[in-house]
């Protein structure tokens, strides 16, 4: 067994180390620095393969379907959705929370793993941060569409207006949400961009065409690799990581407060913030795994994103999956212990009511499926991880659906009970959000280096530093 210090430093054990886990090299193939540069930047310098065109054709079709559905929503009204007076939040907010949750993995990998000196993050942080940005974009569209008049979305910001000025209500969790999501997006974008600058400079130096060189010169800000700049750069990177760490926790905490500060049985729970954050990390890592397993295969990056990386992420999925499972159980206990008949009813209704199928799907995908990660064979076999990560994605979507719809559809007054069923338009918008996500990700893989080359070079000889 390895010692804790080896986990932190990534150092190999002396003697005869077991060739497993953190004793494996971070990057396979015994690469030189110039080889890393060439291989990381190669996808941005050649024409995309046929597979890429097929993929983007599919994702762009999905995006177009979503755009059509959004157009229908905006021109015909929210009546095109399956919402009713009892279930006023359903697919849209489910999708919003789902995407925001996915958006947590990127900053978690960049910031928290950076502070914990988990050097295996270097191969995946760039793509995970990009994924975060795209996921937050997908998330942001849902509340804005749900406004019905999205061109008035700026009303959610405190700006001097002709109505008093009537300021936004700073005591409302929905406003906290606006602030949290927009701050998260801006800081994540900044963090991602700061991390990109050295690689943009490398890309600039390798650019063949004048246009590419000019654009990259603008964005690489005259980077020349000077040690004085590196020194400040590392300070700034550390500071941003330190700032992002509480930020990433705060975002889903505040999202959970959208629910927890209301008095709806099933929502009004103090467990929501930690429960949501754990769920976000859980779903985010599952999505990173899904994307990375495809990307490493398609883009021949198996030597950079090794099974060691995948295995480390599956451990996070297993741990957070169990936290989420514990939260499900705690919710039931709290409902029983509260003695509140409404609260008790909501939870019985979740597990046994008309949406019981969704509840048990959630439990099966989120609590049972990660248990396979106890086996090393599963943790190190990409196709098995891929299947399980898909299950986790499905389960986490259903978790939000269960929390939102089952709590709303039967609340205090039986005369206002109702059922919810999504319309085609809602499903199409959801499909469209996947289209947006994957289209942006596919473009990203061809335009920018998917792997942080400067960071990978720093860990090539990990035992020496």
């Amino acid at each position, binding site marked *: 067994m390895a010692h804790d210090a080896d986990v932190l430093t990534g150092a190999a054990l002396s003697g005869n180390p077991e060739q497993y886990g953190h004793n494996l090299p971070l990057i396979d193939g015994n690469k030189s620095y110039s080889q890393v540069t060439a291989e990381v930047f190669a996808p941005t310098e050649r024409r995309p393969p046929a597979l890429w065109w097929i993929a983007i054709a599919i994702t762009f079709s999905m995006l177009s379907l979503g755009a059509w559905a959004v157009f229908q929503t905006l021109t015909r009204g929210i009546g095109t959705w399956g919402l009713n007076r009892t279930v006023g939040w359903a697919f849209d907010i489910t999708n919003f929370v789902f995407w925001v949750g996915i958006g947590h993995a990127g900053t978690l990998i960049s910031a928290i793993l950076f502070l914990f000196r988990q050097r295996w993050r270097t191969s995946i942080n760039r793509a995970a941060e990009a994924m975060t940005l795209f996921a937050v974009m997908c998330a942001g569209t849902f509340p804005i569409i749900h406004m019905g008049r999205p061109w008035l979305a700026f009303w959610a910001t405190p700006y001097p207006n002709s109505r008093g000025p*009537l300021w936004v209500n700073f005591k409302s969790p929905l*406003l*906290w949400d606006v602030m949290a999501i927009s701050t998260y997006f801006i800081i994540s974008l900044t963090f991602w961009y700061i991390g990109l600058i*050295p690689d943009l400079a490398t890309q600039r130096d390798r650019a063949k065409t004048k246009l590419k060189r000019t654009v990259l010169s603008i964005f690489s800000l*005259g980077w020349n690799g000077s040690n004085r700049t590196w020194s400040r750069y590392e300070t700034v990177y550390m500071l941003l990581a330190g700032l992002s760490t509480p930020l990433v926790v*705060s975002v889903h905490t505040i999202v959970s407060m959208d629910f927890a500060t209301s008095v709806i049985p099933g929502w009004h729970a103090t467990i929501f913030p930690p429960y949501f954050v754990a769920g976000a990390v859980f779903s985010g890592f599952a999505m990173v795994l899904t994307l990375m397993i495809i990307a490493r295969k398609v883009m021949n990056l198996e030597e950079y994103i090794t099974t060691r990386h995948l295995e480390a992420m599956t451990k996070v999925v297993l741990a957070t999956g169990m936290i989420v499972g514990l939260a499900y159980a705690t919710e039931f206990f709290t409902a029983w212990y509260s003695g509140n008949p409404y609260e008790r009813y909501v939870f019985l209704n979740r597990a046994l009511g008309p949406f019981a199928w969704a509840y048990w799907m959630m439990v099966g995908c989120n609590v049972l499926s990660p248990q396979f990660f106890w086996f090393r064979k599963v943790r190190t076999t990409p196709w098995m991880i891929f299947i399980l990560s898909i299950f986790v994605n499905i389960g986490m979507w259903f978790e939000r659906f269960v929390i939102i719809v089952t709590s709303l559809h039967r609340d205090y007054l039986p005369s206002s009970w109702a059922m919810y069923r999504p319309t085609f338009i809602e499903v199409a918008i959801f499909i469209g959000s996947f289209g947006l996500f994957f289209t942006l990700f596919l473009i990203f893989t061809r335009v920018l280096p998917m792997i942080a080359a400067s960071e990978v*070079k720093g860990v090539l000889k990990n035992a020496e530093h």
Partner: protein
Amino acid sequence: MPNTEHLRRSRFRASFADPDRLLFAVKHLRAAGHTVLDTYSPFPVHGMDEALGVRPSRLPRACLAFAALGLTLAFGFQIWSSAVDYPLRMGGKPLIALPAFIPVAFELTVLLAGLGVVASFFAVARMWPRLHVSDLHPGANDDRFILAAELAMDTQFSAVAADLDALGAVEMSLLVEDRLVKGASFWDRPAGAGALILACLPAFLLVASVPLFNRDFQKRNLAWDGGMGAPVSAQAFDASAVLRGGLVLQAPPPGTLSRSGAAPLAFAPGKTEAERAGRELINPYQPTQARFNRGKAMFERVCATCHGREGDNNGSVVVNRGAFAPTVLVSPLVRDMPDGRLFHIATYGGPMKMKGYGDLLSREDRWLVVLYIRELQKAAARPTSAPAVTPLPGGVQP
């Protein structure tokens, strides 16, 4: 003289294939009395700051200052807008509800600290979009580890070159043109971070004071659009693409009761029901001057078009057009009908020609019209020399 001496020292650079060799070379050159100006590498070489004698960056202080600014602005603005400028009590919470202000304050603190420290970094490191990059070695962002240094006094480059070769330099050259030297930046001086914050302060104050100066209570400010003042609402008689029947206005479901009117009549349309109404209903309104006036007005507005102002078909539009002759109200036939039956006909229409006016006239108005018809009949029964309608009919209290 010694102050300018160093300017004449020659500068040279050397590149290595490995960060450890570069680090060792830097230490060696500094020990030998040369001045290493900077190193260039594709990733940060750890231990290089100490080897070069670069002090730790002061950017954390700028970050702290921006964080404090964000925290202050956020709490200040929330308190001012919620408790001073537009005090609006919500959910029974106090106007200054500090716990409720924490999330936004936290987010703004992080936002300003993050953006502020990045802006400071760009300013300090002189990073901005530029097409020509100074001091750029072709391998610096790829796989080379480069140092730029000044020769020590009384040393020849050839001696250093031999040293560098032994240290494993891949390439080295004496620099003719000095482009690798940067003077100490303004921001590197101790006052730098403070000056930066001072420089940013006016902008922040300006932004923060916009709501203070942008107030004119006398006139309506510029609205960005129609907004709440011009809602996109459906009008009753508009066509609708969504609602049943293609109309906004929907028929109430069967059995709907009016909230303002009286209870529904216990009579259906039809002649038998009209006769039953004649037996069972009596006019609940006794004649008064006011009811007479109201009945007259309603009769002349609704009934007289067909029946004539006197109830004798004189001036009837349908008669004049040659359509058909309505029943003469002052005829003995109608005179002999009970009040209830007239009321039923006014409500549901006659057996042949007349439509019902239950939808146009309220129940009270229909009874008053019946009262007025009785007065017309009385007037018609009098000798023709008498005035057509007595100003004060019988039974009316003066």
